[in-house]
C-alpha cells in the first residue's frame, strides 16, 4: 500500500547476512543455522553465515573477506543490540572498503533470545527481523560522518574524591577544567572520614593534599557553593550555566585567617553544624572544617543576626582587615563552554529515621549512623576523636548493625558495597578507642577487594564479635537487670538458630548508599538516564562503564553506583582519560542521521518550522521553501514525520527504510 519503490534503484544489490551465536546466548534460544539458511534464500542475499562470536576478530574478518571476495555492498549483522556493537561492524565494513552506513544490525539477543522462552517463536522472530533488515538495507546510502571542532575545556560536576581526581588528571594533561561543587568546600564524603579501610591510613592525609592541588592548579577554575543550572549543546560543544550562590565573603580577598569567626557576636557556637552531622554547633560565620578548600569562611543568612534582624554590630566586618565581608553579595551566573562533562555528584547515605523506625534512630540518643560515628572517631571531629556518647558516657558495648537501607525490598534492594568494610573499620576504631565489646550484626560479610578479607580476619583475631542475622529491633525494653537502662538489640542468630537479645550502650547503623534525592533533576539537566535504583546509567556496564548514552558526558564515583574509594579513584581516572581522548582529537564525529529537505518537492508550507527544538529549519523566502541547517540538526526526525509532501528525509531513518521494515516484519503468514 505504502510501497514507494526502490529508493536508489540499485539492481546489483549484493547482501551478506551474518548471524551470531553469541556463544550460546543467542544459539540456545534461536536456531541460528535455520535462520542463516532462511536468510540465504532472501532476495539479493549473496551469502548468509552463522558464527559463534561475530564481534570477535575472526568474525569481523569473515565479514571483511566476504566484502572483498564476494563484492558485497550491503551487510546485515544479526547479533546483539546495535547500541553495543554497531560501531564494531561498521568499522569492519569500513576496513574492507565499504561505506560503514551500508551495514545494519538486527537485535536478536536483547530483543529476542534473552526475552523469550519458545525456541520456535524466537527463531521465527529472528527470521522476520532479518528479512526486514534485508529489505531495509536496499535503501541505505553511502553517508559521511560530519566532523565539528571540539571545545577542549572540561566541566567536572561534584568535588568529592571522584571529581577532584578527574579534575587533577585532566588539568595535568594541560586542559582547562571547571570544577563545580555545591557545598562550601570540596572534599565530599571522604573529607568526613577519619581512616580508610583496609589500610587504616588517614583519610585527610590522602585527600587534603589533592584538595590543595586543585586550588593551586593553574588549569582548574574552582567554583564552590555553585550549581549547574542548565546545559545546552551536545558532545564537543556544551554550554553550561553555573549559578554561584552568595557566601557573603569575597573569595578573592579572604585569606582564611578565620578572625571573623572569633569576632562573631555569638560568643558560643549555637547552630547545628551540618558538616559534623549535627554532632556539634557552629556560628553563623563559619568554615565547614579546618582544611576546607577554598579556605574561605561563609555566612549563613538563616542564622546571622545582620540578615535576620538588620541589627548587629557586625564585629566580623570590623575585624576583617581585608574587607572581604560583603553582605550585599548577590548570586552570580557564569556561562561556560566545554567539550566534555564529567558527573561526579556522589551519593547520599540512607536516612533511617522515618524509613526504618524499628532501629530506633531518632528515638534513642545513643543510636548513631555510621557517618556520625565517622565524625565521632575523627581526630578533627566534634570530640577530637574521643568516643563519648550523647549523655557524656563511654560505651562498654557497641552493636554495629549492617545493611541498614541495603539489600531489603522495603528500603533499597542493592548491596551498598562499602558498609561491611567500613563497619569493620569502625569496629576496629571503636574497640581501639574505648576497649568496648563490639558486636557486628550482618546478613552476609562481603569483603571483595584487595586486602579486604585479610582485614576481616584481623578483626576476628582482635576479638570483635560477629553475629549472623538481620536485626529485628533496637529498643530500651529490658527484661534482665543486665539490660536495664541500655539498648537491647534483638536478632535471630541464624548460625546458632535462636533469638538473641544483646544489650549495648551504643548502636551504629551501617547505613547504605543511595542516589541523591535530586539525582532525578540532575539527570534531566544533563539529558542522561538512570538505572532502576536511581543511580546514573552508564552506556554499558562493561564496554563503556564511564560513558553515558549522551556523547561527551561521563560518570565517575558513586553517582553511577555505590563503590569504595579505590574504585572511585580508578573510575575518576578512567572518566578523565575518556574526556581527554575525546577532546584531544580536536574534532568530534557525529552520526550522519540528520535530516535534509528535497528542494524540488518542498511546497513551502512551513509545517516543519515550529517543530524543530533546535531551530535548525529556516525558510528561504526567495525560493519559498524550507531548509535545514545540518550543523544544528540533531537527527530526531520529528520534522520528517510531519512533512505533508514527504520532502524531508532523515539519513539512516528514511521513510522507505522504515516502511520496508514494517512490510517485512508483517509479511510472514
Amino acid at each position: 500500500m505504502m510501497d514507494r519503490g526502490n529508493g536508489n534503484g540499485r539492481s546489483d544489490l549484493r547482501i551478506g547476512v551474518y548471524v551470531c551465536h553469541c556463544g550460546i546466548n543467542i544459539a540456545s534460544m534461536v536456531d541460528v543455522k535455520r535462520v542463516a539458511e532462511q536468510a540465504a534464500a532472501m532476495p539479493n542475499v549473496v551469502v548468509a553465515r552463522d558464527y559463534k562470536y561475530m564481534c570477535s576478530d575472526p568474525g569481523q574478518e569473515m565479514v571483511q573477506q566476504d566484502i572483498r571476495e564476494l563484492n558485497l555492498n550491503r551487510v546485515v549483522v544479526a547479533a546483539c543490540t546495535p547500541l553495543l556493537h554497531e560501531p564494531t561492524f561498521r568499522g569492519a565494513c569500513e576496513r574492507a572498503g565499504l561505506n560503514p552506513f551500508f551495514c545494519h544490525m538486527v537485535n536478536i539477543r536483547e530483543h529476542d533470545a534473552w526475552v523469550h522462552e519458545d525456541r520456535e517463536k524466537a527463531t521465527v522472530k529472528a527470521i522476520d527481523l532479518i528479512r526486514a533488515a534485508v529489505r531495509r538495507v536496499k535503501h541505505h546510502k553511502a553517508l559521511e560522518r560530519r566532523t565539528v571542532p571540539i571545545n577542549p575545556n572540561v566541566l567536572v560536576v561534584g568535588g568529592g574524591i571522584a571529581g577532584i581526581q578527574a579534575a587533577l588528571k585532566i588539568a595535568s594533561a594541560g586542559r582547562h577544567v571547571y570544577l563545580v561543587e555545591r557545598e562550601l568546600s570540596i572534599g565530599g564524603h571522604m573529607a568526613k572520614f577519619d581512616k580508610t579501610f583496609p589500610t587504616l591510613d588517614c583519610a585527610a592525609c590522602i585527600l587534603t593534599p589533592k584538595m590543595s592541588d586543585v586550588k593551586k592548579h593553574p588549569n582548574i577554575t574552582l567554583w564552590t557553593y555553585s550549581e549547574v543550572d542548565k546545559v545546552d549543546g551536545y558532545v564537543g560543544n556544551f554550554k553550561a550555566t553555573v549559578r554561584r550562590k552568595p557566601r557573603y565573603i569575597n573569595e578573592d580577598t579572604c585569606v582564611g585567617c578565620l578572625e571573623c569567626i572569633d569576632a562573631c557576636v555569638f560568643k558560643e557556637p549555637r547552630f547545628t553544624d551540618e558538616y559534623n552531622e549535627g554532632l556539634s554547633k557552629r556560628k553563623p560565620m563559619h568554615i565547614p572544617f579546618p582544611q576546607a578548600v577554598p579556605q574561605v569562611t561563609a555566612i549563613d543568612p538563616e542564622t546571622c543576626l545582620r540578615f535576620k534582624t538588620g541589627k548587629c554590630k557586625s564585629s566580623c566586618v570590623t575585624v576583617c582587615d581585608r574587607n572581604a565581608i560583603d553582605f550585599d553579595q548577590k548570586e552570580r551566573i557564569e556561562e561556560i563552554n566545554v567539550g566534555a562533562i564529567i558527573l561526579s555528584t556522589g551519593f547520599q547515605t540512607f536516612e533511617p529515621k522515618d524509613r526504618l523506625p524499628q532501629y530506633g534512630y531518632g528515638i534513642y540518643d545513643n543510636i548513631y549512623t555510621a557517618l556520625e560515628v565517622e565524625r565521632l572517631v575523627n581526630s578533627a571531629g566534634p570530640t577530637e576523636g574521643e568516643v563519648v556518647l550523647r549523655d557524656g558516657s563511654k560505651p562498654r558495648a557497641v552493636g554495629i548493625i549492617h545493611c541498614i537501607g541495603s539489600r531489603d525490598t522495603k528500603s533499597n534492594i542493592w548491596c551498598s558495597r562499602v558498609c561491611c568494610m567500613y563497619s569493620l573499620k569502625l569496629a576496629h576504631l571503636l574497640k581501639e578507642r574505648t576497649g568496648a565489646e563490639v558486636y557486628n550484626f550482618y546478613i552476609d560479610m562481603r569483603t571483595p577487594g584487595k586486602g579486604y578479607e585479610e582485614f576481616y580476619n584481623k578483626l576476628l583475631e582482635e576479638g570483635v564479635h560477629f553475629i549472623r542475622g538481620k536485626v529485628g529491633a533496637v529498643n530500651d525494653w529490658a527484661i534482665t537487670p543486665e539490660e536495664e537502662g541500655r539498648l537491647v538489640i534483638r536478632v535471630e542468630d541464624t548460625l546458632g538458630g535462636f533469638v538473641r537479645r544483646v544489650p549495648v550502650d551504643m548502636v551504629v547503623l551501617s547505613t547504605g548508599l543511595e542516589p541523591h534525592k535530586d539525582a532525578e533533576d540532575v539527570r534531566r539537566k544533563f539529558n542522561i538516564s538512570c538505572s532502576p535504583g536511581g543511580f546514573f546509567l552508564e552506556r554499558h556496564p562493561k564496554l563503556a562503564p564511564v560513558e553515558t548514552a549522551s556523547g561527551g558526558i561521563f560518570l565517575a564515583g558513586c553517582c553511577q553506583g555505590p563503590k569504595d574509594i579505590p574504585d572511585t579513584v580508578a573510575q575518576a581516572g578512567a572518566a578523565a582519560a575518556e574526556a581527554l581522548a575525546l577532546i584531544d582529537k580536536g574534532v568530534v564525529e557525529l552520526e550522519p542521521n540528520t535530516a535534509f529537505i528535497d528542494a524540488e518537492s518542498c511546497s513551502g508550507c512551513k509545517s516543519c518550522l515550529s517543530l524543530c527544538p533546535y531551530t535548525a529549519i529556516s525558510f528561504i523566502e526567495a525560493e519559498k521553501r524550507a531548509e535545514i541547517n545540518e550543523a544544528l540538526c540533531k537527527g530526531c526526525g520529528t520534522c520528517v514525520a510531519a512533512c505533508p509532501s514527504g520532502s524531508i528525509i532523515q539519513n539512516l531513518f528514511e521513510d522507505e527504510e522504515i516502511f520496508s521494515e514494517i512490510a517485512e516484519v508483517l509479511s510472514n503468514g
Partner: protein
Amino acid sequence: MANQEFEPRIVAFFCNWCTYTAADLAGVSRMKYASNIRIIRLMCSGRVDPQFVMDAFARGADGVLIGGCHPGDCHYISGNYKCLRRYHMLERMMADLGVEKDRLRLEWISASEGDKVKRVVNEMVEQVRALGPLDLPGRFADWDAEMRELDEKVQREHDGACEAHAAKETQS
C-alpha cells in the same frame, strides 16, 4: 477461552534513548515476555509518522505500540510531545475506522524501566489477543471483492440498459 490459538502481531516503534534501551535492559535482565512483538528502532518517538502506524495496520498488524521517553525526558527536548499529539489524532482516526482502542498504545518507558517493557508488551498482547485478528488486508480483499461485484453489477445493468435502448431504437 476464544482465540486461544490466535497469535497477535504487534509492531512497535521505540525511541533509541529510552524505550529501545529499556527493551535492551529487559533483555539483559532476562525478563520474559510474549514474542509477538517486532521492535523497530527510531531515534525519537517524534519520528513516528502517523503513516507508519496506518501502514502497519494496513499490512496486517493486530496492534501497534509506540514507546518514548517520559514527558520532560525527551533526548530531543520535545519530540515525545509531538508524538503524543499525533497519537491523539491517530486515536480518533482509528476510532473512525472502527479499529478498537486497545490496538494502538503509546507508553512512556524510560531506560531504567525494563520491567515496564515486559508488562506493557504482555498486557497488550493479551488485550489484542482477546480482540482477535484485525486482518485489515483480509478486509481490504473483501472490500475489493465487494467493489468488483458492485462494478460488475453496474456494468451488467448498464449493458442491459444499453441493449434495451438499442432494441427500442431498432424497433422505432
